[in-house]
């Protein structure tokens, strides 16, 4: 039996960016790594302005911007399509993978939130340190971008790379 050459009905539309598995993985590391590093370096900016303050400020800005751009690119990729597509647009294996990716992302975010809460409590009890409104805002921004990026990033790392 020979079938006429059909086209897959489950392919994402051309509006999504078709990155290779390697590129998507690099973007995910770049996005989350840059944003985390930018968040961590902002703590140093709170100190008294010194001669290297401007360089540090520039580094934080560049890292933050690079992280956001990488997050947006990953969010516009086919991995993001697979991570966010409704059941009707992906097949049953992809539905299973999508659900697993979201569950893993949820676990990761809950872990980060819990760890942050514990660390903050310890720092407050031990040193009387309370995060400022700016630190909380930066942390929430980091979490929002992580929540947007993680499911697609997890799918990129799980991708076996087979084209069929």
């Amino acid at each position, binding site marked *: *039996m020979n*079938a006429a050459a059909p086209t*897959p009905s489950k392919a994402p539309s051309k509006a999504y960016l078709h990155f290779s598995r390697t590129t998507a993985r690099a973007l995910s590391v770049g996005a989350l790594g840059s944003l985390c590093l930018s968040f961590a370096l902002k703590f140093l900016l709170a100190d008294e302005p010194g001669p290297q303050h401007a360089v540090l400020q520039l580094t934080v800005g560049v890292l933050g911007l690079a992280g956001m751009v990488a997050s947006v690119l990953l969010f516009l990729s086919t991995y993001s399509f697979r991570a966010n597509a409704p059941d009707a647009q992906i097949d049953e*294996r*992809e539905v299973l993978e999508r659900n697993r990716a979201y569950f893993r992302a949820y676990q990761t975010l809950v872990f980060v939130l819990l760890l942050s809460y514990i660390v903050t409590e310890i720092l407050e009890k031990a040193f009387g340190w309370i995060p400022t409104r700016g630190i909380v805002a930066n942390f929430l921004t980091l979490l929002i971008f992580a929540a947007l990026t993680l499911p697609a990033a997890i799918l990129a790392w799980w991708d*076996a790379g087979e*084209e*069929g």
Partner: protein
Amino acid sequence: MISNRIQIFRTDRGLSRKELAALVDVNPQTIGFLERGGYTPSVELALQLARVFGVSVEAVFSLEPFPPLAAQIGAPPTTPIGDTP
């Protein structure tokens, strides 16, 4: 773990993974996962695959590993190279 003969039936029918995927409405990658045993299909997908191949679902899927093809067709074991008298 469910064993399957999807690859055997697919090649026998002259279908590529893309063609088979389109016939059962899944991503071609999913056919690759199925053939390698990396994914166990739903009952619906298993029945669709059996229908495409024109055989019963038991002919394509089994709870036990399928015996080697040579054993199934009753072929004698091949003589190792160098053992010929």
